[in-house]
């Protein structure tokens, strides 16, 4: 857990300095992103349905991490409770599909809206709590969630300890792709839209206010920013993102149970956030890759010691890239451009 995010995160060097955000011009960055998007559309056509399924999960975790990033990376509020929002989103989808036979398309807005409201409400008491105290409050939320899902009075809805089976989406008849591919593209489009929204949000006036609060709350208040409003709104939006990811997760897995949404999920999301890069939007996807694949790598090296190997890999990654993948890329790019400037005759 951390003590003060605002003070020390100067070292994080936010990916988007607040003042440079207005002008959008096409640069190599955009070409690279376009390349990734094209690749994301092509990959499932070339890979097995299992890999497609795994990539769907990567996208989902990436989206959930983006939700956490909006709160922690851009607004400086710390949360260990995002497994709860992920779980609420997943259960919303599962209950709507299982008990009310709602189409899966409608479960995403429902999950997002519900999580926004709950996140916003949770953001109110969180206003009074800072740093470690906020960490404890969100931690409490994460620990309480499985207990609440198991609670006997709610069993009629949640299925209690046995969980709920969710009917998975099927590819409509008019497209010649498998169900796994369909779900992948569905997830990909949802993710792209939500990533774009996040990008616009961060680069908007609102986004600058959100980041100003992170960098210096007192100065932000002095400039006339309504800190309380923006902080609770960010909490709500953050929960919305993670909740939609949870709903997608329920569709991809086809099953929800209280044990899927424990504090360990929060910790995974946090690890993904840090490894991807705090305050970087594309970094979230790298975080998603890490969350899904690194436990598998640890597993392949030694099943019995999987936990220990996972820890060692995590340490090594932190040693090599202390500011996450996004920070690492920034350093490399900076080195290259400096090298170019100092030795132009070589090129």
């Amino acid at each position, binding site marked *: *857990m*951390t*003590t*003060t*995010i605002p003070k*020390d*995160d100067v*070292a*994080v060097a936010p990916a988007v300095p607040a003042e440079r955000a207005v002008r959008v011009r096409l640069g190599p960055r955009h070409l690279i992103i376009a390349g990734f998007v094209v690749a994301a559309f092509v990959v499932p056509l070339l890979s097995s349905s299992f890999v497609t399924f795994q990539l769907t999960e990567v996208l989902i975790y990436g989206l959930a991490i983006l939700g956490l990033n909006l709160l*922690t990376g851009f607004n400086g509020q710390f949360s260990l409770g995002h497994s709860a929002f992920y779980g609420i989103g997943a259960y919303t989808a599962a209950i709507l599909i299982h008990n009310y036979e709602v189409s899966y398309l409608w479960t995403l807005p429902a999950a997002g809206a519900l999580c926004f409201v709950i996140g916003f409400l949770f953001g109110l*008491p969180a206003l*009074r*709590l*800072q740093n*470690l*105290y906020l*960490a*404890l*409050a969100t*931690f*409490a939320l994460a*620990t*309480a969630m499985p*207990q*609440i899902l*198991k*609670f*006997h*009075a709610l069993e009629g809805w949640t299925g209690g300890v046995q969980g709920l089976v969710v009917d998975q989406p099927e590819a409509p008849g008019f497209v010649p792709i498998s169900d796994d591919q369909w779900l992948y593209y569905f997830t990909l489009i949802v993710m792209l839209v939500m990533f774009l929204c996040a990008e616009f949000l961060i680069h908007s006036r609102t986004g600058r206010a959100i980041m100003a609060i992170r960098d*210096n709350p*007192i*100065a932000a208040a002095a400039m006339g920013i309504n800190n309380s409003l923006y902080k609770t709104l960010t909490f709500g939006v953050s929960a919305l993102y993670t909740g939609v990811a949870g709903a997608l997760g329920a569709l991809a897995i086809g099953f929800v149970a209280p044990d899927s949404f424990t504090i360990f999920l929060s*910790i995974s999301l*946090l*690890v993904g*956030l*840090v*490894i991807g890069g*705090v305050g970087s939007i594309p970094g979230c996807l790298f975080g998603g890759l890490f969350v899904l694949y690194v436990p598998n790598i640890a597993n392949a090296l030694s099943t*019995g*010691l*999987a*936990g*220990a*190997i*996972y*820890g*060692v890999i*995590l*340490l090594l990654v*932190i*040693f090599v890239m*202390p*500011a*996450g993948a996004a920070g690492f890329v920034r350093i490399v790019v900076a080195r290259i451009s400096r090298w170019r400037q100092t030795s132009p005759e070589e090129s």
Partner: protein
Amino acid sequence: MELLLQQVMAGLANGAIYACMALSVVMIFQAIDHLNFAQGEMAMFSTFIAWQLIAWGTPYWLAFAASIVLSFVAGVLIDRVLFRPVQKAPILSQLVAFIALFSILNSSAGQIWDYTIKTFPTPFGHTPLLGSLVDTHEAAMIGVTLLLLVLLYAFFRGTRLGLAMRAAAANPESARLVGVRVGWMTALGWGMAAAIGAVAGMLIAPVVFLEPNMMIGVLLYGFAGAVLGGLSSPAGAVIGGFAVGVLENLAGTFIPYVGQELKLSLALIMIVIVLMFRPSGLFGRSVVSRV
């Protein structure tokens, strides 16, 4: 009424466990300005080392002392080897390093010592006291926790080293200017936290049984206790630990319908409510931020 008394006593006995852990949480917070996620696992590992020594025939007190010394050394080494390289990294990255350490210690302990519960001896015995409300070990645990508290208080207030450590944690730059070796102070803080953790682990193990996952729950409650009491106050952490123990038992027993199933959630919610009115914990000093 008798039930109330019994639940309060059982809560105090559990609370002693949390208080022990909360104390070591606050200890490392004082030294390095961090909460350490791996603290519980470090304590668990130290306890296993003592257990192994005893299993090899070492007398209890010798194993007890050896475990404390080894833990101290290990704490210093963890700081020098693992956390030196990430010292300049952002705080969240350091947090991930704690998670990594947690994972490594937990998994290795399971591999080395297996997951069956082990009995850990206590020199105090389990003789019932006060009409069997507590036993001698539980009473001793409360006593040792209070003793540790007094010693720490004396150390931090009364000795040059203690003052230097506090200075190094509170304001590393200024401390360095007045000649405090900040790096070593941090390492010392790690060592002391590990040693206190070892004591806590060896006191807790006879009650909850020793196994690799022994400390996960205890750490959770220890954090809660430390935060409730206030992270800047060792005495507050101890009181916080006891309060969490009692609060949880009373919630479980006396809140009808929801109590038992949701008692952990209820206890945590109560803590959050307290924090909303006392944002730095019950006994913590509020920090004035500078612009």
